């Protein structure tokens, strides 16, 4: 059975793909049938993934299983569709199928009554298929294919309620921003193909250590990193993720918190051997990640929309993971990816439950004291928030701690301090959200709040359990089993350090305390702080005006250039064409007056012609004689 699951791991992405095809071609008229097909297929995939994971983790750490079929090939270019099952892929398989399954079940409740339910589950299936294909990919070509496909699923699901202008624009923004990242990513892949003649991970990881030309490897690494910057919404391509919250909340939980946005982190982990060969590239990754973590956390404290706060939190945590990878703590990065997937999807689903319970209300200031009405949602949400804040012994504590440890142990003291600061900010903004939305003084919303149905609360409970326990796999309690399997040559594996544990926990606790003081006890009025630091508040509230700057650049540079070039095309190139036509017409117009209809004029022309011919002929005769 285990062997079977391993050799047939390709079924894991294929089943949801078949579900998509079935829904798209035949079943879209029957919403509930579509939903069942989709959930059934992802359920089977989940079981298969679990079997695969059990098998992989019972082998010795270095063992992998690889298989592929020919997809696109010609002399000099070979792109296969394959699968590479190793511990990293196995963990991702379990996380993706698990969260996807729970989210789809939850969606049964959340999307109830929506007219587009069939296509919703169709897209969900397509997304699951593409994401699983990405996870299993054994070469860069395949990863790029599925990379784009998850992007387009994200596009469809962000724009799912396409009747809203905001959803439409957010979907376009997400796809285009990702395309900018993919531009670099694709170039990086082209470089790899040209330099090494292969895109296969195993072959590349064998070839790269022997390749010493850093002048070539550095641009490759930087260009490849473009892709994760776009997909994992790192600064400066982060702008699409907050807007992506226009999609249905389960979508935000699955795609824009747990899985797809983590694909960038996954890619960096997967191609760790390339990045790790170039110290400058690693530094770049660490700095981009650290900056994003701080930058997004600072924005999150000034937002009022429950989903946007979570979105900025996601950005910040993704930055955290990138930072971990950048400092060389590959295990910690992937570990945080996994725990984050559980507790962040829990938080999003909880937020979705609140939004449904409050009848489409997303402003936390308009909620307030809904805890008594929605106990399950409240308490699972608090578990998620505690896990995110990194309070022991919840999962977030273990993974966040490893990252800070990695940053400290690798000598990146600046990034370590930044990480602690972010931990503090994270605890603060999460508990600002919790105190205001769930325990706030505002009672306007309390009367209409109601708990969600079981189909939504059960996934919350399951995820809450995962959010509590998932961290144990890499704790001393389980002998760091995770780290034994998920590792890369050259990645650091620091020893635990009690001082760091205490310090980061203190930072998180003080964040919670501050939030409690301001928003629950109101020792300091939030309004007063807002007044005092109105400049800073405005900057944060407007997300550092980055959207405005990009908008201005887009309108001025791109659309402006487009208009100028169109003018050029119409007036210069077409103008030249029309000028030629005009000249032809005009010369004909002029010459036709020589045709005056008089026989004698024509006779004169003829005579002149004969004379010219004669003269020419005579000249010829004379030259011949002479």
């Amino acid at each position, binding site marked *: 059975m285990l062997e079977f699951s391993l050799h047939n791991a390709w079924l894991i992405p294929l089943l949801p793909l078949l579900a998509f095809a079935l829904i798209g071609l035949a079943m879209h008229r029957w919403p509930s049938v579509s939903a069942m097909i989709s959930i059934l297929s992802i359920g089977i995939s989940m079981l298969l993934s679990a079997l695969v994971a059990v098998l992989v983790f019972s082998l010795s750490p270095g063992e992998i299983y690889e298989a592929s079929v020919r997809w696109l090939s010609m002399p000099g270019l070979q792109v296969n569709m394959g699968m590479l099952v190793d511990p990293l892929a196995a963990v991702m398989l379990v996380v993706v199928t698990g969260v996807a399954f729970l989210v789809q079940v939850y969606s049964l409740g959340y999307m109830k009554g929506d007219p587009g339910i069939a296509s919703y589950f169709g897209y969900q299936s397509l997304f699951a298929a593409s994401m699983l294909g990405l996870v299993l990919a054994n070469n860069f070509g395949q990863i790029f294919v599925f990379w784009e496909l998850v992007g387009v699923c994200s596009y469809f699901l962000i724009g799912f309620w396409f009747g809203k202008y905001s959803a439409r624009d957010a979907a376009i923004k997400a796809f285009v921003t990702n395309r900018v990242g993919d531009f670099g990513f694709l170039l990086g892949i082209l470089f790899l193909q040209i330099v090494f003649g292969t895109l296969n991970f195993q072959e590349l990881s064998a070839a790269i250590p022997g390749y010493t030309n850093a002048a070539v490897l550095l641009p490759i690494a930087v260009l490849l990193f473009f892709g994760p910057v776009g997909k994992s919404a790192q600064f400066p391509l982060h702008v699409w993720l907050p807007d992506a919250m226009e999609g249905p909340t389960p979508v935000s939980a699955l795609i824009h918190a747990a899985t797809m946005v983590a694909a960038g982190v996954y890619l960096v982990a997967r191609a760790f051997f390339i990045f790790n060969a170039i110290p400058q590239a690693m530094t770049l990754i660490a700095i981009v990640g650290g900056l994003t973590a701080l930058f997004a956390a600072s924005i999150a404290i000034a937002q009022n929309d429950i989903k946007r706060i979570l979105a900025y939190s996601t950005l910040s945590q993704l930055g955290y993971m990138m930072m971990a990878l950048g400092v060389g703590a590959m295990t910690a990065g992937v570990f945080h990816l996994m725990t984050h997937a559980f507790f962040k999807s829990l938080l999003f689903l909880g937020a979705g439950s609140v939004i449904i319970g409050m009848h489409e209300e997303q402003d936390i200031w308009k909620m307030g004291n809904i805890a008594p009405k929605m106990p399950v949602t409240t308490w699972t949400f608090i578990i998620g928030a505690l896990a995110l804040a990194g309070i022991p012994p919840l999962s977030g504590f273990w993974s966040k701690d490893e990252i800070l440890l990695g940053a400290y142990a690798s000598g990146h003291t600046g990034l370590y301090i930044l990480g602690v600061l972010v931990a503090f900010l994270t605890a603060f903004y999460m508990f600002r959200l919790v105190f205001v939305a769930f325990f706030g003084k505002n009672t306007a919303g309390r009367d209409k709040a109601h708990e969600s149905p079981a189909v939504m609360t059960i996934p919350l409970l399951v995820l809450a359990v995962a959010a509590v326990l998932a961290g144990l796999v890499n704790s001393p309690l389980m002998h760091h089993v995770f780290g034994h399997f998920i590792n890369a040559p050259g990645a650091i594996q620091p020893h635990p350090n009690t001082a760091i544990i205490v310090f980061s926990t203190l930072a998180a606790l003080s964040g919670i305390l501050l939030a409690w003081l301001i928003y629950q006890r109101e020792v300091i009025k939030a309004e007063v702080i807002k007044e005092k630091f109105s400049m800073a508040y405005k900057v944060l509230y407007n997300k550092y005006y980055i959207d405005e700057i990009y908008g201005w650049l887009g309108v001025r540079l791109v659309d402006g250039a487009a208009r100028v070039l169109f003018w050029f095309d119409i007036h210069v190139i077409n103008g030249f064409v029309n000028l030629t036509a005009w000249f032809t017409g005009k010369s004909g117009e002029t010459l036709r*007056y020589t045709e005056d209809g008089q026989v*004698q004029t024509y006779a004169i022309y003829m005579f002149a012609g004969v004379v010219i011919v004669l003269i020419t002929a005579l000249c010829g005769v004379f030259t011949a004689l002479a």
Partner: protein
Amino acid sequence: MIGLSHYLIFSTVLFGIGIFGMLSRRNAIAVLMSVELMLNAVNVNFVAINRFVTSGQAAGQLFSIFVIVVAAAEVSVGLALIISIYRHRKSVDLNNFDLLKW
């Protein structure tokens, strides 16, 4: 002694008169007559060259008779056209016949 060159000069003058008449006269019948002059200039050439250069053969004479025949046909057709035009337009002035201009 009258030689070939005299004939040639004569025919050239005749041809010149014909050309001049054809290009400058406005009366269609005069133009037709000028064309006849040109044809006859050619005939003179044919006969003269046949006489002085290739006296053994009669090709030039033959051709001149040919030309006369064609000229007769041409004149008859031409005159018929002119008469037809005259019936319609009450004029044989070429300046009036420019229906085919530009």
